[in-house]
């Protein structure tokens, strides 16, 4: 039986009170709930406060470049589909620097779970606006407030018919754990955008602010209804719906490759006799 202990307990470099703490806990709880052992899991992250997460629990880890967790996760999953692959990073990393890979990963529908610590700010670099910062959000680098409309990851993911699209909030542990479990269970690309207060640089979207707004989707909600999902995905303001917003069952990317039908690449030897035949076609 896997327990929380198996996932370890580490000193972090996060600020006291940061929303990353409950997120880390929820992630561990979800893994325990799934009965997964640390070595079955690979967590790939980018760079940022959020991206430090995999250093704070037991798992296989690839902590790569800012913005590039998704392609690394995809490569690893294709090399060994037996791995449970989680890509984890911040809003800046996933939706800013990594925006193009976000689009690519959704289109492919590869079976990875993407956990985004969305604190609506660049935490590690000390408080510049992030893609999800709200219009008018004032920072040192945006003294006149943000001019751009915020990036709505859920609206884009639903518009692109992503496999699984959900929002969580670190202030609602059980709900978050359940959402992560469902994301891991979903056999395809799963996006979980998690509202995660940054107590140092985001004085607008605080625990309180989110708590007053986050409302779980009712159990009657049908995540397979695309049109409704699209409407839910753009809701933001007085009420922020959380839960699984959209879902479909298209086959995941790695299922398409003939090479993978024989098992993970990592176990396959090169068939040199076949190659010999191929070489002969060059004669």
């Amino acid at each position: 039986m896997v327990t929380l202990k198996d996932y370890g307990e580490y000193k972090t470099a996060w600020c006291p009170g940061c929303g990353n703490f409950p997120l880390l806990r929820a992630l561990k709880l979800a893994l325990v709930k799934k009965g997964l052992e640390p070595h079955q899991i690979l967590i790939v992250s980018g760079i940022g406060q959020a991206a430090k997460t995999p250093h704070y629990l037991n798992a296989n880890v690839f902590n790569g470049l800012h913005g590039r967790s998704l392609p690394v996760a995809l490569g690893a999953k294709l090399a060994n589909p037996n791995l449970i692959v989680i890509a984890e990073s911040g809003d800046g990393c996933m939706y800013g620097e990594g925006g193009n890979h976000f689009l690519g990963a959704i289109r492919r529908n590869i079976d990875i779970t993407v956990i985004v610590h969305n604190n609506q700010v660049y935490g590690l670099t000390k408080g510049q606006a992030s893609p999800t910062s709200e219009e008018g959000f004032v920072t040192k680098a945006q003294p006149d407030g943000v001019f751009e409309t915020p990036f709505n990851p859920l609206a884009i993911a639903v518009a692109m018919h992503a496999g699984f699209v959900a929002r969580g909030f670190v202030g609602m542990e059980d709900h978050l754990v359940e959402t992560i479990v469902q994301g891991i269970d979903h056999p395809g690309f799963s996006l979980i955008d998690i509202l995660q207060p940054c107590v140092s640089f985001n004085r607008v979207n605080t625990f309180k602010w989110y708590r007053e707004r986050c409302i779980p989707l009712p159990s009657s909600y049908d995540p397979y209804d695309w049109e409704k999902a699209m409407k839910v995905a753009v809701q933001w303001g007085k009420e922020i719906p959380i839960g699984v917003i959209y879902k479909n069952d298209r086959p995941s990317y790695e299922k398409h490759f003939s090479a993978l039908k024989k098992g993970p690449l990592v176990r396959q030897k090169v068939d040199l006799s076949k190659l010999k035949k191929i070489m002969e076609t060059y004669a």
Partner: protein
Amino acid sequence: MDNRCINILIGGEAGQGLQTIGFIFSKGLVRSGYSIHVHQTYESRVRGGHNTYSIRAGVQKVLAPQEEIDLLIALNEETIDRHKEDLSSKGFIIGNADLNRKEKNWIGVPFKTFGDEIYWNTAAIGVAGGLLGLDRRILNKVLGEVLGEEKALKNLSVLEAGYQWLASQSFKWDPLPFISNPSPRFLMNGHEAVALGAISSGLKFCAFYPMSPSTSIAQTLIDWSREMDVVVVQAEDEIAAINMAIGASYAGAPSMVPTSGGGFALMVEAVSLAAISETPVVIVIAQRPGPATGLATRTEQGELLFVLHAGHGEFPRAIFAPGSIEECFYLTRKAFELSEKYQGPMFILTDHFIADSYRDIEPIPVETLSSIRPGLDPNEIESPYLRYRITESGISPRLLPGLSKHLVVADSHEHTEDGHMTENLSIRPKMVDKRLRKGQGLRSEVIPPTFIGEPESEILFVCWGSSRGSVEEVATLLSSSGTKASMLHFSQVWPMIPEQFLHYLEEAKQVISVESNATGQIAHLIRRETGFLIKKRILRYDGLPITPQYIMRHLKER
């Protein structure tokens, strides 16, 4: 031995099927026992413009392209106007009779009588085959193999008509000697050899974003991916491509990314990631003239110093620059082996010229070759497992994630031995040193430059990568005409080990570097590594490959 060569240039527009008939004819020549060397030129467009496919053929190994044309096969009139100046004194021009050209060796073929315009190219090689005295059964067979039976059917009769028409004429041509019972050879271009070399060494994953002239590597892998169980992913961009490859390699699939200079520029950050995370990855940079878009379909050797220093931070690497098709195959294998052994990015520099250059090679006995198996046996690892254990060689134990209880932690930060990020500054220099120590291992495995010729020669030509053939030909030519000349060719351009070659430079009366770039990059590098200054440089940077003739012209010039 007969050391004559003939040079055939097929010219026409993109879309006229030049490459197909050029390839068929090349294969016919090789099957007939001749050695060949193909050089292609084309523009950055899909239809129209002016393309060429040159085949130089001979009895002895053909090393290089040739500028003078012995047989010009003109699929359109522009071809004649552009190339007739290069025709040798006994050269022929094959073209459409209707053009009514007045050149003295004009072979006006009544193509119209053979069929629709789309078959004229086949007719032309029929005529050429007849002229060269090629066994028509060989060409017939190749045609069937290349076009597929159905398509071949109509073409076969046109080919035959070409042969027959030629037979009815009385053009005088001094053919290459007939070769009886030729031993089988492979016809392969540089990028096919890279791709097949990669597969043979264990490649399981390739990610790419299309870019000339690198696409043909990915395409060759795709062509054989189902048979060889290789996963090839067309990525959203080059940054994704290399990060995917790094991810796949981390998880145990030997990986490669083929690209060109501009695409590689986008990969530079991830090169650095491969270095610090100590993840094997083989990167092929198929060079073309820059800066930026430059000349997308031409050739250059302009990225040596760029690739040598690409990536922020300091780490060891090896860079190969194959000068022949065989080297394309075997050096790719070597790159994979070093990449796995030393756990980091390794580089191969090809270029447009060698990428497309079909040549005949000795069959490669792939079944006798070894292939790499990534990672160590987890059972032989002591606990706690330390991904970045500090060792004397700098090489740390690499395990693959998910295959045992050991957790494999790879990191882009400076890290402790267990892979977790650290801000402990006393660890930093130890890790830097550990990574750099792998460079010593790499230095101990360097393939020395190839020296051909006699020591203490009048002229020593220094070259690297694809220009080898032309330089070798010139050196041989000069030597046979009384000027002692030799060649020093770097097929591995980094690391550079002065002891392997400095004496050659010092012994020669004159050293001349020959490179397809404008600044003389290998000369710079040799200066830096040995202090030896190469004063005379023959450089070419108009997008065409270095030819023996180009070298000879520039030798005379001063």
